[in-house]
């Protein structure tokens, strides 16, 4: 098996929330239901799945046909994930940008929709995003694929973070191929989005 960027369609991106801003995950359940009513984010939005009883993983899912939007608590770090399930058009970099744009737009919407909540809303500092491959056939965690994917993601990180220094670090979880992309300065979600257009 070898890395095949052209074939890698299943992957997830996670943008981290400021832990101090993240309220009880259950408060997001009605927000996601409202998103379905209002078609607030791209995709055929199907249902909300409540996994708030779990720790260290998905907490609340907005299930869509194309991708899931996930309030995620993996490794105790709250954030919003976008897990792509259906194929996207274009080269790998284009697909990455499309998915990232969907994720960041959803994060921005979540900031807005939770801002009126008691105790304030969730905020995303915008300086860290995590990529994980979800296809062990196209992208197993071996040295070759890790190296190839690192290069792709370094380029994507440079674009997203506007040329700032980006730390590209492999995921701690040895079972998954992925990288964390991190820069020092916080960046607004609007700015991140503008760089993906």
């Amino acid at each position, binding site marked *: *098996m*070898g890395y*095949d960027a052209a074939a890698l369609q*299943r992957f997830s991106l996670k943008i981290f929330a400021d832990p101090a801003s993240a309220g009880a995950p*259950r408060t997001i*359940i*009605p927000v996601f*239901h409202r998103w*379905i*009513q209002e078609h607030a984010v791209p995709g*055929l939005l*199907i*249902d*909300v*799945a*409540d*996994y*708030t*009883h*779990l*720790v*260290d*993983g*998905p907490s609340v*899912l907005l*299930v869509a*046909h194309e991708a*899931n939007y*996930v309030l995620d608590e*993996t490794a105790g770090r709250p954030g919003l994930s976008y*897990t792509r*399930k259906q194929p996207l058009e274009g080269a790998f970099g284009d697909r990455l940008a499309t998915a990232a744009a969907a994720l960041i737009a959803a994060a921005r919407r979540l900031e807005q929709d939770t801002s009126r909540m008691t105790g304030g809303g969730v905020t995303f500092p915008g300086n860290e995003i995590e990529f994980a491959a*979800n*296809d*062990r*056939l196209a992208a197993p965690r071996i040295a070759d694929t890790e190296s190839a994917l690192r290069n792709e993601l370094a380029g994507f990180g440079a674009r997203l973070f506007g040329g700032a220094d980006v730390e590209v670090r492999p995921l701690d*979880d040895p*079972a*998954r191929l992925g990288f964390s992309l991190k820069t020092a300065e916080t960046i607004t979600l609007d700015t991140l989005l503008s760089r993906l257009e």
Partner: protein
Amino acid sequence: MTWKEALGDRIPAELGAEIDTFERQIALRRQGKIDEKVFAETRLRRGVYGQRYDNGQRNDGTGPKTLPYPSNGLTKGPETVWDAPGMQRIKIPMGRLAPDQMDTLADLAEEYSDDVCHVTTRQDIQLHFVHLDDTPDLMRRLAAVGITTREACGNTVRNVTACPLAGVCRDETFDVTPHAEACMRFLLGHPDAQDFGRKFKVAFSGCREHACGLVSMHDLGLIAVTRTIDGAERHGFETYVGGGLGAVPHQAKLFDEFLPVEELLPIAQAISRVFARLGEKRNRARARIKFLVAHLGLEEFKRLVLEERAALPDDPRWTAHLTGAPPAAEQPLKPAAPANGGGSNGFEGWARTNVYHQRQSGYATVTVALPLGDLTAHQMRRLASLARQYVGGAVRATAEQNIVLRWVREADLPALHRELSAVGLGRAGAGTLADITACPGTDTCKLGIASSRGLAAELTSRLSERAAAGAFDPAVEGLRIKTSGCFNSCGQHHIADLGFYGVSRNIGGYAVPHFQVVLGGKWLDNAGAYGLASGAVPSKRIPEVIERITGRFVAERREDESFQDYTRRIGKRALREMFADLATVPPHDDDPSFYSDWGDPREFTLGDMGVGECAGEVVSLTEFDLAAAEARIFEAQSQLEEHAFARADELAYGAMLLGARGLIKTEFVDIGDAPDAIVQEFRTRFFDTQVFFDKYAGGKFAMYLFRRHEGGPKLKPDAVHHLVEEAQLFLEACHACQARLAARPAAGMPAARTPAAGAQAAGTQAAGTQAATQGQGR
């Protein structure tokens, strides 16, 4: 590169061929070449199940809305849209899991599902939100680690369950594991277990007293017993039949006080035959074997089974597991070592509720208590790693939706607890009031009325702290709470001390989620008694019900009185009165929270319920064979295109044999696989009688089969090309013949088990059962 290529011979040949066939059937359904009902039962038999909203409709809280799946009208079953996500049930016989299997389950949950593995009340694992098109690869990856999803759903023998302590239990008569394993292997795909009107569930228990096997609620339940015969101790089973929960719960009836282990498989086969032949097929609500046993009476049912047993031809598989070297018993990874202290925060409470000291001195079985039976992919993978580190792989899923690690040496308990806690798996309270069982309910089930998981999550949240602190009164600590989303009892509410199942009530023009309270069921004694329905209470008031009834029980119980005895003593009227004030619902404007369910802010509605798939589709053996023949001819065409002529010839010939066999099964279900017998029976029953004849072409299409059968393969490209075309025409003629047969007035006679001519085929029907069959009129 595909998964099929990547895994290569790591996929056992037989499983690989089955999955290839399923993949072809998916392709054929896409082309409209398989009827949606046949395809639905086909996928159900591979564990591919529908989910809520897969009819393309959902109430989003403002009203019913269409979900515009990009399916272009394609369906994967009646009212089931192709692109709608579904559930994959994965059979884990006896709940036995190995670490590499757990790693694979974690990978599949991440790649095809929602990152969560769910343990079911039948020791299965389920993945939700799976796309149909992903299922063949998912199955291949499971097959590569020795797991099949075959017959996980549909009208089949479901996962064979057994006590998760089998082999390490202090009280068991003997380890039932090898017998359960043999039973599972024998019945999986067995021809006599393919024509049921409903599902068939088998369970094994090592003793009578404990709950682990839940024998009394099974279609076939077996309890390990011994008997001294001619001075020697013999192993056998106290055997029960006709139990089941559902809307009409039945306690299983004693079929045999001592069924010698040698007779287990033949009797299971004979029971299967009687159920397939006489069980209800049209009325799904009365098609489980419990209704057949009740209808015939136990004695007549038993007589028919024994008659069938007497007529069964010997099968070496019946005793293969009993002869030769005994199967390797589970071995500990490390030498025994007693506990020596050192537990971290919470260890004592956890050890009190989650640790079972095995009969093997120095070892313990640890229960990993899973909230609602869920664990994340990361947790599953971590648990696999801990299993390797501490027990070498002895892991089982339980009917209480937990996972146990067996053979933990006691000295390792503190370290294991620390490591489990580090990934959120060190929760105390296993087997207590806070360890709640729940079916999927309205979260994902099409039949769900109320949110069983939402209620269970709320109760877990309220009760867990007390469980960890050991703060429950001893009289109530070990009581069980079980919740179902509807009366079908997938959450096993009937056998809980405190059971709840979802119902709806109309209040002031609004639907309000309620739970029917079922009290006093008996989890112990292998599900020894079913509870009493004691009135419906609004969903949001169920926590108060639990507080009240447990409080009253503690205050009012007589010395050593059990909860079951208490509820029976005070009676149904008093129980209803106890909750009468809780049954009221405030007006919608005063408190709208009553009008939505736990964990779901939408106003409650029954409008999202769909057509359930628990009952599967009744699809005849003929339809299955014709569908399989279609898949085979499809593959023959592919092979022809790739110039693999020998393989194409073989597949085309095989497709004709399958088509012919399907027709024969309308009259003679035991035809078997032998080509000579198929051709002979087909000639006698359908050609000589002209039943197969086309109005214009006469017997021409049958000659295609006869010619290939008698003339053997001709592998020149043109000849193979012709054969593939002829096979296609032959199959068309089989379909036409089947349609003519279906249009004939019903004869009221089930398919016979005797060949039309020649030697007796394997498995002839017991003498005399024809009469019983005719008299049955089912």
